[in-house]
């Protein structure tokens, strides 16, 4: 492809963006003020920008098709890329705080769309602070799956409130998830694994999937294998800790 040749950030052999041109700080502080545009409400999310093939013009965004999967802190986007072909009719989005990483995922998706016409049209990414702006992107009960794969551990006690899973944030996740929807979490940090499991277990609007249900869910296998972080852990022979819970109606 001509364009790629002129663009040194894309690999000549694969046409995919090279990660080394998108190197970023290891961590962002989710508490600092934001500098990126935030939709006023879910109605203001421009689907035609994210999914042009599904939404050729901006005024068609009122259609009933809505984003159903959200990968929170998607990193370099490995999970989304796997899910895109596994669920070709489902719209999905990655939310990522680091701008360079988000740019990388954007380029990656565009390159895959070009290389595989008709595919990867259902996947997109947005730069945002998921801890603050989830309700600006999704309506009540809109999502059927949410992913939190290898989130930043924030070890220090005083930084626990920066963790993406907490009893308070679970209230917001429960709001955007429909009854029956599933929240997937995995980490290689045992303490964080315990923390995420405890938060979910104690929350009145979530219940654990049974081992048969976990076995039957094709997505569960991707948790430890599909993302860049997961692959790194696997290469180093690290252990992983998983908590997969279903959104239930609160008992009265």
């Amino acid at each position, binding site marked *: 492809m001509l364009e790629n040749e002129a663009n040194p950030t894309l690999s000549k052999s694969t046409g995919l963006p090279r990660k080394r041109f998108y190197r970023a700080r290891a961590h962002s502080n989710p508490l*600092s003020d934001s*500098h990126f545009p935030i939709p006023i409400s879910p109605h203001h999310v421009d689907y035609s920008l994210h999914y042009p093939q599904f939404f050729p013009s901006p005024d068609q965004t009122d259609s009933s098709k809505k984003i159903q999967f959200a990968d929170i802190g998607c990193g370099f986007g490995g999970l989304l890329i796997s899910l895109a072909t596994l669920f070709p009719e489902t719209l999905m989005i990655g939310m990522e705080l680091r701008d360079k990483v988000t740019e990388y995922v954007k380029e990656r998706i565009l390159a895959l769309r070009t290389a595989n016409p008709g595919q990867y049209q259902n996947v997109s990414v947005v730069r945002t602070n998921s*801890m603050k702006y989830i309700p600006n992107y999704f309506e009540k009960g809109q999502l059927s799956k949410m992913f939190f794969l290898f989130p930043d551990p924030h070890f220090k006690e005083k930084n626990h409130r920066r963790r993406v899973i907490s009893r*308070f944030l679970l*209230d*917001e996740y429960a709001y955007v998830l429909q009854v029956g929807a599933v929240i997937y979490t995995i980490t290689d940090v045992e303490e964080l694994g315990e923390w995420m499991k405890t938060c979910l277990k104690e929350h009145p609007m979530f219940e654990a999937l049974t081992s048969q249900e976990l076995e039957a869910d094709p997505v569960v296998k991707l948790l430890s294998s599909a993302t860049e972080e997961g692959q790194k852990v696997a290469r180093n022979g690290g252990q992983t800790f998983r908590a997969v819970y279903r959104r239930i109606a*609160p008992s009265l």
Partner: protein
Amino acid sequence: MEDTPMEFGESNKDTEIAPALIAVHPTQESVAAAVGPDLRIFDLRQNSAVSLKDDSSVGSLHKDSIRVVRYGANGKLLVSAGDDKLVKVWSTESWHCITTVCSEKRVSAVAISNDGLYVCFADKFGVVWIVDLDRPDGQVHVGKKAVPLLSHYCSIITSLEFSPDGKFILSADRDFKIRATVFPKNPLDGAHEIQSFCLGHTEFVSCLAFLWTEEYPQGFVVSGSGDSTVRLWDILSGSLLDACEVGEKAGLLGSNGREAECYSAVTDLCSNPDGSLVAVALQRQVVSIGGGTFIPTSLQMCSSTGLLWMVTGVSNLRGSECPSLARVRVISGVNKSNSDSDTREHQELEDNEIPGGTSLLKNLQGSLSYGEEVFLAAAEALKTAMSNLLVKKQYSTEKRDFRKRTRNDKKIKQRK
């Protein structure tokens, strides 16, 4: 990396400027005004100033600016809280402080549940805490433990309100959000079920008030914002029902080209019980009274008397010979909607027509008269303080990099 203090508006030192506040007992048995750390109460049945009795070991009364003062729905309790991180609950019968709760952070909003059993307060980390008041009357309780109820992630909560039917608690924040949460049967276990988010404001939300009709016991809510609009919401769905550009209505926008970009924030609002009338305080609204100007800092309607109580004032006004001042004004006839008749029904009361007369004014204001100019200076200073606290700073990339480069923690590291 340290949390940026700016995020929580805690950067300023203890002598922060604070607006004067007013609260009216539901049946107007008393009126409360807060100016800085001073809580002033006038008993309209006795026609005398109240002396508050606070035996709590935490030290009596407030030590820093009060940021919220309000009566409970049944009028039995009054709650005050603010920058000294204390939440004080007062019995309106004995005027004893019956509970003092210590917050970890400064308190930005409070609400008493409609049944009078719980006090909720919001701190500057966006966490709403709850304390149960279920105590035999008269027993003084100090240092009661609050438990977290819900949280707006690292935002500043500006207002808390219970719906008229008590089923929901609403919380508004600087991130343009209003959240309606189901108030559960056992709120000490937390309020997890979010009913809706009311999204549409394009600046911080500063105030909330409920409108109530029999057909809608959960009520409609109106909100005021730094975007200079007042919006009407259905809290069950979170839908925006109406929006009113009050800044424009008041002829403030566009009238001055230089400030066209600078919206006048809505700072307070209140409604009469049937929702036919909403009174709005705008940062630059000028209410002409006897040729003078009056920019209220706080408002409250009393439904039983149809009086709109307003205060303007400030504490810790730097560089002024009266650093703390307050002026109370009252408008009558607000329990009837204006459209019902042609006659002019809303009337500004003269000082001697105000219930309690000059002794009330002397008590609540601290003094009977102040110069005009000082109020204008106060209004200007308050506007700056509010915008510093609540308006999000938009940094250009350059400025952001500059800030990063010149950050103190980095400097310290370099010196090592």
